[in-house]
C-alpha cells in the first residue's frame, strides 16, 4: 500500500517535470532561431532590422504580447485571436474582422507574412511602418478598443510583464516604444519563403505538369499585379467589385481623399493563399474558384477599373483549375507550422545563448 502511494507520487512528479520540459523546449528561443535566411532573388527588405534587431527575450515578449488578450479593453481578444498561425496569420472563414463585444468590423483580416518587405499596411495602405501598425487595431473601437495609456498601466501593473520588459530591455519600465518594438521583433520574423514554388525555383523540387501549366498561365495573366517572388507589387487597384452598400468602404480614397482612389485596395500577396480564405478586402469570395470566376467573367463594376484586371477575362474551366493547382504550390507548410510562432504555453523564458 505504502509502496503503491510512493510509486504514484514519483510517477506524477516525473510526468509533471517532463511536461514542463516539453513545454519549455517548445517555447524556447535561441539567438540562432532569430536568424533570417532569405533566398536569392528577393529584394532588400524595407524594414531596417538593424534599428530593431530581434533578441530572444525581445521576441519572447513580443510573442507573448501578440497572443495576450490583455491588449484589448475587456481582456477578451488578442492579436492572435484574429491572426491565426495556421492561416498565415489571417482569419480562416471570417469574412469580416471580429472585435470585442461581438462587434463586426469593415474588412477581412489580412495575413501577416513577409511584412519586412511591406512598404505600407492595411487594405488602404494607411499605416506607414511595421512598428506603429499595432496601434491601429489595439485602439480601434471595433477591434480591441484599448487606449494606449490604459494598456501601459495594465502591463506595468501585471505580475509578469515588468520582469519580461526587464529581460528584453534592461529595466522593468513599460513604454509604448518598447511594447511596439517587442511586437515588431516577433512580426518581422514571420517570413514565408519555403513553399513548393520556392523549392522549385531553387531547383530542389519539380512541379507537376498541371502546376507548371498554371505557373506559365500565372506569369502571363496575373503577374503584372502579383509579381514573383513576393506575389504582390504593393500597389492599390480597383478590380471592379461592386461596393458593399452596408459597409460603404471607399478603400484607398479613405486615406488620400482622392475620388480616383475609390474602391482601390492593396494587392495582397498570394503566398499561402490556399489557407487565407475567404478572399478580397471584405471576404466576399469563399474560395479561389469564386475569385477566378470574378476575373474570368469580365463583368467589372464602376469607373477606374484597373486595366490589368482585364488580362484575366475568358479563363476556361481547365485554365482556372491549372491556376488553382499552381497557387497551392505557394503554401509554405514549414511557415504555417513553425513552432517559434505558436502561442506559448504557460510561463516562458529565453533559453541558452
Amino acid at each position: 500500500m505504502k509502496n503503491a502511494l510512493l510509486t504514484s507520487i514519483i510517477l506524477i512528479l516525473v510526468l509533471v517535470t517532463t511536461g514542463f520540459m516539453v513545454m519549455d523546449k517548445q517555447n524556447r528561443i535561441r539567438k540562432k532561431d532569430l536568424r533570417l535566411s532569405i533566398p536569392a532573388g528577393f529584394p532588400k527588405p524595407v524594414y531596417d532590422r538593424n534599428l530593431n534587431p530581434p533578441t530572444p527575450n525581445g521576441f519572447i515578449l513580443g510573442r507573448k504580447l501578440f497572443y495576450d488578450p490583455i491588449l484589448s479593453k475587456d481582456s477578451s481578444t488578442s492579436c492572435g485571436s484574429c491572426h491565426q498561425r495556421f492561416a498565415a496569420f489571417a482569419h480562416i472563414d471570417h469574412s469580416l474582422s471580429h472585435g470585442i463585444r461581438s462587434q463586426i468590423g469593415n474588412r477581412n483580416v489580412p495575413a501577416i507574412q513577409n511584412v519586412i518587405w511591406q512598404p505600407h499596411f492595411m487594405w488602404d495602405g494607411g499605416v506607414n511602418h511595421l512598428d506603429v501598425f499595432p496601434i491601429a487595431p489595439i485602439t480601434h473601437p471595433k477591434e480591441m478598443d484599448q487606449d494606449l495609456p490604459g494598456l501601459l498601466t495594465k502591463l506595468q501593473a501585471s505580475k509578469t510583464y515588468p520582469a519580461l520588459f526587464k529581460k528584453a530591455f534592461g529595466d522593468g519600465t513599460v513604454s509604448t516604444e518598447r511594447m511596439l518594438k517587442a511586437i515588431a521583433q516577433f512580426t518581422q520574423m514571420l517570413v514565408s519563403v519555403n513553399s513548393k514554388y520556392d523549392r522549385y525555383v531553387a531547383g530542389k523540387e519539380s512541379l507537376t505538369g498541371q502546376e507548371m501549366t498554371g505557373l506559365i498561365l500565372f506569369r502571363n495573366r496575373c503577374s503584372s499585379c502579383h509579381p514573383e517572388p513576393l506575389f504582390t507589387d504593393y500597389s492599390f487597384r480597383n478590380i471592379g467589385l461592386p461596393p458593399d452598400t452596408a459597409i460603404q468602404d471607399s478603400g484607398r480614397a479613405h486615406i488620400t481623399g482622392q475620388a480616383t482612389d475609390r474602391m482601390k485596395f492593396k494587392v495582397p500577396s498570394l503566398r499561402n493563399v490556399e489557407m487565407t480564405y475567404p478572399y478580397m478586402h471584405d471576404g466576399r469570395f469563399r474560395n479561389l474558384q469564386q475569385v477566378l470566376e470574378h476575373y474570368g467573367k469580365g463583368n467589372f463594376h464602376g469607373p477606374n477599373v484597373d486595366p490589368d484586371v482585364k488580362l484575366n477575362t475568358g479563363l476556361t474551366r481547365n485554365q482556372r483549375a491549372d491556376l488553382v493547382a499552381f497557387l497551392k504550390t505557394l503554401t509554405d507548410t514549414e511557415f504555417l507550422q513553425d513552432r517559434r510562432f505558436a502561442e506559448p504555453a504557460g510561463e516562458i523564458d529565453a533559453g541558452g545563448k
Partner: protein
Amino acid sequence: MRLRHLLPVTILFCLFTVPSFSFRETERKKDGELVIQFNHFFGDQELVLDSVTYRNSLQQPFQITAFKYYVSNIHLVKTDGKSVSVPGYFLLNEEEPDSRKIQLPNLPEGNYSRIEFLIGVDSARNCSGIQKDALDPAKGMLWAWNTGYIFLKLDGISPQSTAPGHKLEYHIGGFKQPNNHLRTIRLETPGLQIHSKTKSTLGIKADAANLLSAPHPIDFSKTPMVVDADKAAGIANNVLHLFSVTRIQNGL
C-alpha cells in the same frame, strides 16, 4: 606599411581634429541660454479651459476643453544671416504649464533677428516608426489609421455644434501632398541678444481665437469637426496667424 605612409594621414587628422576641438571650446565659452515662454490667449484674455465661454468670429459661444500642439525644427537667425538650428520635438499643452516653456541652454552668443519653427512634426519623423518622449503615441497625438502626427489640437463644446455631444474637434495634421499642413512660423525678434552664461527670455503669444477666424472663419454649425488631413486645408492656414512675439528680455 612604413611610417612615412602614415604622415599624410596624421596631418589630415590634425587638420580636421584640432580646429574643431578649439572651435567647440570657444563656442562653449560663449554659450548663453534662451527660454522661449509660450503663453496661451483667447483675444486679449489668458486662455482658461472648460469654465470660460468664448465667442468665435461668428459670435457662436463655446468652451475650449483642450489646446495642444507640437513645436519642432526651431531655427534662430542671427542679424548676420547665420542660422542656429535647435533639435527636438516639443509638445506644448495648455494643461501642463511646464510644457509651454522651452529651454535652450547652449545657444551661441550674438544678436538674433528672427525665430522660425514648425507647428507639427516633419515628414521624416512621421515615417520613422515608433517614437518616444514628446512623440510617444500614448500622448494621443498620433493618427493610427492613417499614420501621422496631429500637429495641433483644439477641442471644445458649443451649443451650435452639430456633432454628437455638441463637441468641437479641430485636429490639424497631414504631411503628404496634396494635404501637407505643416506650417512654418516666422517671427521677428528685434533686439534679441544672447550673452554668454546669462539667460534671455522670448515671450510668444498663441491666440486661440485666431485659429478659428481669419483667413478661414470656422462656423461651428457647418464644421464642428476637422479630423482628416484632407479636410484641414482652410484651418491649417489659420495656424500662420496664431503666434506673435510679446516680450524680449535680454540677459546681462
